[in-house]
Each structure stands twice: as structure tokens, then as C-alpha cells.
């Protein structure tokens, strides 16, 4: 086992938002690790549980390294060693191993929950690591035919997490109030109307920022960790970051964080060569660029190292039976093998990489949110990974039309079916919203809105068109309306079902 023996230190003074997010995400990871472990040793776990276990642990270890949490990283490494030993024995583990693993998960939770500036008073990490080592060693020296204990399911723990900046409920309430300001602006006239609109725009931006994090400092932090890792490995490296001031939602940050941890570790460990092997190339270069492109955020991680060893990867895949000997494979297909769980071009894993977990973890995390990852590589010139993640809730499809009683652009979700109506009784949606009539059209278009049993007759000034709208100030689905942008114009997205309930109409 190769482990950093530096003594545990106080929790570093990191930006509170970054630490809070790390705690939240890591405690969730620990819950998944615990559940997967319990299922696997009880014999009810699946292959997916094994993958979850190794990926989550690997990512936790990487995150801890990035944030400089040596104690969490050190213990994660020991737990990972234990898990891989268990994996080799198909989770036929001795009770001692189960107890020490269970305690290690709890120990990790305790270390993660510690606040900035706290010292490790009363906690004997070194002693605990010795206990883990002793149990692991003892276990590995025993024959591997120990029957799997049936210890039953695990009790769910109550998770204690701190809010990052505002809870989703708070954000929803603020977004709803901000939308009320927009409605007031529609009711007002003259300078008051303009002032209220400016207030709405400011509030909408502030609400949006509540759930967003600037990527710049996060990327810098990951690059600093990569540089430190390069030094540990005796490599020289320059880093460059270009995030263009991009801010992303927390969920997107989480996915990009996982990608950065593994892609940078891989680049440093596999990509950038040792100085002696970089003849004429100078120090290695790692570049990270982030850009918002339409409804996606794109992360590029590039290095100018050796590139993927295509022949080596193929040979390794053949050696472990992943592909048949001599099979015809394109270079693209071989590179794709790098994302397979358990596949690594390195024959002997180190505590940095080589277990075939990292890239598979990235792809799993990215695909979970509907994103994608691609890689291009050139022998001796380096590799480039591009991760694309959708900006959640950024856009929605709508029908857009002008209200019959006022020159206000309205929208309803595209899930509503809209048909012309010949009957009477159509009302303008603005009536339900208590918006005043201004320049009503003389001959409105009557529309029938239909959705799963809901039916509404609506009066419009024109025929609806289908469009993609940008959600300017997203509100909860229970809120009657929301402000969106369709092209250059703004529109009020109305949710007829909520409106119905609010007005007591059914």
C-alpha cells in the first residue's frame, strides 16, 4: 500500500461555499458507499453496486486531495485498498473487515463534518489507520474461502448538512416574489413601470446567482492540486485556466468537479511525461477551458504529454479479455475502452491512478445528467477531453402568443395541446393574473388549451407559435407564472393548471 504519511492537520481555510459543497456532496457519497458496501457483503449487491462503491470512493479521495484534506484522502486511500481487496474476494469478507469498514465510513463522515479551523482533538486518525491496516493484513493472510456473513441491511442515518447559500425552498420563494414584481411592473405605467422592471431584472439576477458558483476559483484550485501532484511525481508542469467568468448551478459544478478531479489526475499521471522523456518539449502544459455554449457548458482539459498509447491499450484490452485477440478495432473504439470500468493501461495501480475507475466515473457522472464526453489524442502531442453538460432548467419549449386584452407576450408550456376554438367563453389569461386591459384587440382568437383532462379557453391577439424559451427567473412548477425570454423579447410563461387552482377554477 502506498500512502501519504503526513500527519493530519487542521481543516484548511477554504472558501466556505466550496467546503460546504464538499461536505454536502461527500456525505451523500458516503451514504452511497455505505449502502453499496452493505448490499455487497450481504450478497444482495449487484455489479452496479460494486461500480458505485469504487467510483464514489475514488472521487472522494480525489476531491479530498484537491481541497488539501490530507486526512480524508489518507483514510479514503486505506478504504479503497480494503474495497479492492474485497472486490478480488467477491465481497466474501470476514466480520472484522466489515466492522472496520463500517467504522471507517463513519470516521470519514466525522472528518468531513469538521468545520474550518477545527483541530483533530480526541480523534486518533493514525491509530485508526493502524487498526485498518492490521485488519486488512490479517484478512489477506487468511485463505479466501471465508463465507460471506449475512449482516442484514443497513440503517439509514439522518444526514446533517448545512445549506450552501440558500435552500431550494428559499430560492423558490424569492423567485416567486421576484415574479410578483414583474407582474406589478405590468400593472404600472410610465416611469414607475420602468423602475419596477429594473428592480425585477436586478432581483432575477440575484436569485439566479444564489444557486450559482463561479467556476474560476474552483478550476484554479483543481489546477493547483494537479501541479502539487506533478511535483510529487517528479514532473514539471505549467497550468493554464480560462473560464471566461462562467458561473454554473451547483449540480453542474458537481459534475464538472468530478470530471476535473479525474481528468487532471490522469493527465498528470499518464499524460505528462517525466522531464527526461520530454526532450525538447520543456515542462508539461495542462490547459483547462470552460465556456457556456447555448444550453450547455463545455469543459476542455488538454495536456501536451505522450497521448494515449493506442497499441498498449489494445494489448492490455486483449490481455484481460475485453476484446478478442486480433479483432478489428478503430482507434476511436480503442480510445473508448479507456472509459470502461476496470480498464487501465497501467498494469500496476498506484495511489494516484491505474485502477480503471477515474474515466469510467467521469462518464457515468456526465451521462447521469444527459451530458457527453469525448477524447481526441495524438501520439507524442497530448490528449484533449471535452465534457459537455446541459445547463439544467436553462431552456424550455413553449407556445407563445400575445394577450387579447393587452400587448403582453404570453407563453404556455409546449406540453399543452393548443387548438382553435369555435365556442364562446374564452378569457384572456391576463384576467386571471389581475393585469389591466390596455388596447385590447377587437377580434380575439379563441384557443382551447388541453392537457391531461385540463381544458381552458383562452383569448389571444394572434395565433400561437412554438419556440424555445430561456428561463430568466425560474419558479417552482406550483407557481402560476414565470418570466422567460423568447428571442429578444420577454414573455410571461403562464401555468394554466396552477392558475386554475389559484382561481378556484376547475
Amino acid at each position, binding site marked *: 500500500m502506498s500512502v501519504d504519511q503526513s500527519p493530519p492537520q487542521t481543516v484548511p481555510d477554504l472558501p466556505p461555499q466550496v467546503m460546504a459543497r464538499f461536505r454536502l456532496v461527500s456525505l451523500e457519497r458516503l451514504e452511497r458507499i455505505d449502502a453499496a458496501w452493505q448490499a455487497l457483503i450481504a450478497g444482495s449487491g449487484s455489479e452496479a453496486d460494486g461500480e458505485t462503491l469504487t467510483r464514489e470512493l475514488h472521487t472522494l479521495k480525489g476531491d479530498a486531495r484537491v481541497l488539501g484534506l490530507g486526512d480524508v484522502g489518507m483514510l479514503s486511500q486505506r478504504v479503497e485498498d480494503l474495497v479492492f481487496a474485497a472486490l478480488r474476494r467477491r465481497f466474501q469478507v470476514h*466480520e*472484522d473487515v*466489515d*466492522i*472496520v*469498514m*463500517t*467504522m471507517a465510513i*463513519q*470516521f470519514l463522515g*466525522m472528518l468531513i463534518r469538521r468545520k474550518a479551523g477545527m483541530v483533530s*482533538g*480526541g*480523534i*486518533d*486518525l493514525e*491509530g*485508526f489507520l493502524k*487498526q*485498518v491496516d*492490521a*485488519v486488512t493484513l490479517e484478512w489477506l493472510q487468511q485463505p479466501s474461502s471465508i463465507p460471506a*456473513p449475512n*449482516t*442484514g*441491511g*443497513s*440503517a439509514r*442515518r439522518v444526514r446533517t448538512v448545512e445549506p450552501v447559500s440558500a435552500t431550494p425552498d428559499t430560492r423558490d420563494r424569492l423567485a416567486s416574489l421576484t415574479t410578483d414584481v414583474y407582474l406589478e411592473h405590468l400593472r404600472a405605467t410610465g416611469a414607475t413601470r420602468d423602475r419596477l422592471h429594473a428592480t425585477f431584472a436586478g432581483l432575477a439576477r440575484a436569485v439566479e446567482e444564489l444557486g450559482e458558483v463561479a467556476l474560476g476559483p474552483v478550476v484554479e484550485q483543481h489546477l493547483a492540486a494537479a501541479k502539487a501532484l506533478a511535483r510529487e511525481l517528479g514532473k514539471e508542469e505549467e497550468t493554464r485556466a480560462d473560464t471566461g467568468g462562467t458561473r454554473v448551478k451547483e449540480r453542474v459544478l458537481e459534475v464538472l468537479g468530478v470530471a476535473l478531479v479525474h481528468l487532471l489526475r490522469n493527465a498528470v499521471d499518464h499524460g505528462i511525461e517525466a522531464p527526461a522523456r520530454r526532450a525538447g518539449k520543456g515542462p508539461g502544459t495542462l490547459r483547462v477551458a470552460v465556456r457556456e455554449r447555448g444550453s450547455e457548458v463545455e469543459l476542455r482539459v488538454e495536456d501536451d504529454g505522450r497521448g494515449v498509447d493506442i497499441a498498449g491499450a489494445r494489448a492490455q484490452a486483449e490481455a484481460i479479455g475485453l476484446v478478442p485477440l486480433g479483432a478489428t478495432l478503430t482507434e476511436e473504439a480503442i480510445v473508448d475502452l479507456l472509459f470502461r470500468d476496470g480498464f487501465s493501461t497501467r498494469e500496476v495501480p498506484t495511489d494516484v491512478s491505474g485502477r480503471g475507475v477515474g474515466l469510467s466515473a467521469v462518464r457515468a457522472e456526465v451521462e447521469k445528467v444527459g451530458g457527453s464526453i469525448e477524447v481526441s489524442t495524438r501520439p507524442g502531442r497530448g490528449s484533449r477531453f471535452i465534457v459537455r453538460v446541459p445547463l439544467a432548467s436553462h431552456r424550455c419549449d413553449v407556445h407563445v402568443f400575445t394577450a387579447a386584452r393587452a400587448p403582453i407576450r404570453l407563453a404556455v408550456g409546449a406540453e399543452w395541446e393548443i387548438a382553435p376554438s369555435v365556442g364562446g367563453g374564452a378569457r384572456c389569461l391576463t384576467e386571471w393574473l389581475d393585469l389591466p386591459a390596455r388596447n385590447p384587440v377587437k377580434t380575439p382568437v379563441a384557443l382551447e388549451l388541453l392537457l391531461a383532462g385540463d381544458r381552458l379557453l383562452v383569448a389571444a391577439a394572434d395565433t400561437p407559435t412554438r419556440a424555445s424559451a430561456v428561463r430568466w427567473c425560474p419558479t417552482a412548477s406550483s407557481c402560476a407564472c414565470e418570466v422567460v425570454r423568447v428571442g429578444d423579447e420577454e414573455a410571461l410563461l403562464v401555468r394554466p393548471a396552477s392558475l386554475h387552482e389559484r382561481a378556484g377554477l376547475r
Partner: protein
Amino acid sequence: MTEGRIQGAFQAAELAAEAASDDERITVTFKGSADTRVMAQVNELLTHVHDRALEQARREVVVDFRDLEFMNSSCFKAFVTWIVRVQGLAEDAQYKIRFLSDRGKHWQRRSLGALTCFAVDLVEVDA
């Protein structure tokens, strides 16, 4: 009342557990074997013990494992949770937890050794 039995004692599956307090300390005794079937009762008993220790401002709780043949990981979690709870108290409200163990039982040496590391200033193991 400062002495007497503490709520939560039980005899179920292969485990008997009881707790009592005297003027100085609370003593919890486990006999038999503890597995997932008694996990909830172990949790409950330790919660009662913790509450009573705070109520009576006891400085020490003794946990007698000498007649405990085995305890599985699910039940052990209850002890970790308990220790972390005590650790989270203000320093003047904290109490010590002393385990009486049987060194001849290998699993006790291992498990209690690891458990001590959670709070070396609060947890002691007597062999």
C-alpha cells in the same frame, strides 16, 4: 431518583442487555451475541443511557462486554453514533465511556481498538 434500572433493557434473539445507574456511574451490560435483529434495541438502549447520563450528570458510563460473544457491524454503528454524540456535547457535559472487555476475544480487541480512535480522550478499554 439517582439510582436504579434504566429503561430500554431487553432480551431478544441471542442478546440480553441491561443498564443501571448508581451514585457514580451508569453500567450497561451485554451478554450473548448481537446481530442485525437487535440493532434497533441496542440503539434505543444507548439513547436511554445517554439521556440518563446527561440528566444525572454522570461522569462515566461503563459498558461491560466481557460476556458478549459477538457484535456485528450494524450494532457497532450504534456505539459509533453514541460516541460521536458525546463528542459533540459541550466539554463540561461530556462523560467518559469505559469498556470492560475480554482480551481473549479477538474481535473485541480489534473493534474496541478502532472504536477508541474516534475519541481517545473519552473512550477507554479495560481488559
